[in-house]
């Protein structure tokens, strides 16, 4: 099963295990399950966003709007609950629907007007952040018994660790993402478009419709991230999640997905997000290192994975083409 195309995801796994193993070797505290479950909780919102982003990148596109979408959905949800008095479930449903719809609209513009995903989602990034500001400028607390109940859910595990609601939500969305990618026709179409969109069209893949669905899905996942984030912090803030799109893209690439599309796994993205979390935790444990080392390490890993993939693609091309 190990062939050169899934070499990156093995590299991801090895990097994750090495970092985690180093932590366990170096610090006693690291050996507790608490560290792992905290990683799940603290990186849940990054990983959920990155799962949606995985589909976009697998299809050869990019979505810069996710960070703003998270903030916008959070603020919208808070507005619906606190100002309009909607039940949180209804508010969540409306907010998620709006997020999906906005994603789909970007998809339509990209697919049917032949515009670059980069610049269209850049416009989306400005728009959603602006909309968030229009609804509210300040941080709003969400005080609703239902929301508090959700954020209080906790399933203790052996050791001191335990699963929070958002960790479980993230794991559920991860499983759904994996199934969507590998076990549905939609998922296969995403891979086909990213591999070679021209051939995919000749093979009967509805390229445009699938593209719209992909951006709608990314909108859905970042909207869900907005909801999770709001529940996690019990508040909403229009300046939340600035720059998350970069972390999400980094998680996807470090997770072994080819940035030009066609190759990668949703599970790799999970690992990519966790690697960023482990690096941060290691730096916190160390105490003497500063926060900028996270950025440098993530940048270094990005470089490593991009060069690794470039090498693999060049090598594969040289082997198959006779000249």
């Amino acid at each position, binding site marked *: 099963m190990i062939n050169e195309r899934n070499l990156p995801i093995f590299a991801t796994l090895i990097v994750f295990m090495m970092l985690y193993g180093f932590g366990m070797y170096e610090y006693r505290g690291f050996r507790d399950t608490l560290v792992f479950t905290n990683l799940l909780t603290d990186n849940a919102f990054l990983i959920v966003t990155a799962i949606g982003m995985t589909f976009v990148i697998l299809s050869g596109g990019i979505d810069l709007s996710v960070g703003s979408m998270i903030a916008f959905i959070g603020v919208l949800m808070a507005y619906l609950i606190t100002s309009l008095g909607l039940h949180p479930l209804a508010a969540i449903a409306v907010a998620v629907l709006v997020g999906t719809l906005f994603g789909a609209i970007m998809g339509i513009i990209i697919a049917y007007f032949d515009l670059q995903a980069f610049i269209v989602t850049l416009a989306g990034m400005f728009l959603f952040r602006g909309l968030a500001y229009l609804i509210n400028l300040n941080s709003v607390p969400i005080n609703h018994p239902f929301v508090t109940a959700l954020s209080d859910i906790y399933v203790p595990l052996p050791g001191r660790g335990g699963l929070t609601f958002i960790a479980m939500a993230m794991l559920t969305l991860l499983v759904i993402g994996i199934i969507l990618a*590998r076990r549905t026709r939609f998922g296969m179409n995403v891979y086909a478009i990213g*591999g070679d969109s021209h*051939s995919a069209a*000749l093979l009967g893949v509805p390229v445009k419709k699938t593209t719209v669905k992909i951006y709608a899905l990314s909108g859905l996942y970042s909207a869900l991230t907005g909801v999770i984030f709001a529940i996690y912090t019990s508040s909403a803030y229009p300046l939340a999640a600035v720059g998350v799109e970069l972390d999400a893209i980094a998680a996807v690439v470090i997770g072994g997905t080819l940035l030009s599309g*066609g190759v990668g796994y949703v599970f790799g993205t999970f690992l990519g997000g966790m690697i960023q979390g482990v690096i941060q935790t290691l730096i916190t444990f160390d105490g003497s290192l500063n926060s900028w080392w996270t950025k440098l390490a993530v940048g270094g890993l990005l470089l490593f994975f991009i060069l690794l993939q470039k090498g693999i693609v060049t090598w594969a091309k040289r082997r*198959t083409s*006779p000249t």
Partner: protein
Amino acid sequence: MDLRAGEIRALLGENGAGKSTFIKVLTGVYERDQGTIHLDGQIIQAQDSGHAQRLGISTVYQEVNLIPSMSVTENLTLQQQDKTFGLISWKKAQKRAMALLAKVGLDIDPSKQLDSYSIAIQQLIAIARALSNDAKLLILDEPTASLDAGEIQQLFSLMKQLKEDGLGIIFVTHFLDQVYSITDSITVLRNGESIGTFDTAQLPRAELISHMVGKSLDDLAPASGQNRSQQPLETLLTIKNLGKQRFLQPIDLNIHAGEVVGLAGLLGSGRTEVCELAYGATKADQGETTLKGHVLTQGSLRSAIRTGMGYCPEDRKQDGIVAELSVRENMILALQASRGWWSPIPMVKQKELVEEMIKRLAIKTPDMDKPIGELSGGNQQKVILARWLITHPDLLILDEPTRGIDIGAHHEIIQIIQELCAQGMGLLVASSELEELVVFAHRVVVMKDRHKIAELDGEQVSEHAILQSIAS
């Protein structure tokens, strides 16, 4: 045109004869404006390639149209996956893929990436996919272009087997040997018209070629011998044993000052390849090129240009014009490139040069600042020619200089070629139109299957002689 079940039909024609249009109409990519298509006695009308496949018409293209980054199974089952509880069952998919592969006689691991297999196997996998929805008619569009001899045999034995299973096959190729070794009948297209359908066994090779190029050997005088052979002056270009694996068999070639050497041959015979290697646009892996006594560094276009070479590529749009830039900018590009960026040609000088060229070559453009993409094909070609003439080259390589341009410009370009030659320039001109080639060429090199098969000199140059050497 009729095709029986269990028949292999060759579809032949030069570039622009209408082969691909015909295929696209058949598979519903283009809308037809008249006529009907019957399949198994029923009138059909395919909406798009997916619909055509459901109707039983499947196509396999020259460049394998599968997804290289996906596994063989995924490729074979894309858009037609078997599901359990609404989710794809990879077990069933694998089984289905194995069955399909067995149909084409492949025993490979379908869980591997498509691009871990050779092009030949990918081609067979593409055929397996084409057969997956009970195809009645299989169209193979130049499937052999990138295969070696053994792989071609493999493909042919599969085709024979499919034919016995009662499948109708349309086989598009430009290798005549293959036509004779595998097909039952031949349909020749020329200039968008069907010339006729013939029994392969009863059609002599020479006759087939004359159908394709639209000239009968009997109509042609054995030798016209009008142009020619004044004693050539000095040797300009010497090509020794120049070749590249799977691209061009090594060839030798000399070009003298004041001489036009023509490159003839059918489509895919290696005309373009000779031009590309001689100029250095593609790096040769053996042999050497000498221009005016200087041995050129392989792969360095600047050294070729500086020594005095110029090259008008076959694909004008992709390799020739820079569509967004103006006529003037396009024209001075080569000269400017050889001078380097730090030494710009003064605007006054540029305008002078361009004005002169526009006049000399009678280029029709409202002004020199119009984007070249907005000119007609013939005028674009003249601008590309002018781009090189400005550099005062000693040797000009023209690949299909008259392709896709109107009759008037066609004639003018031939005149330009003759004038340049008279001024002492050496020219290497590849062309699929023998008629024009024999008008201006002093010598003709005949290519076939990427080999140089003949060199006709002076008196010998005639359409008749060229056709004869291709046919033999």
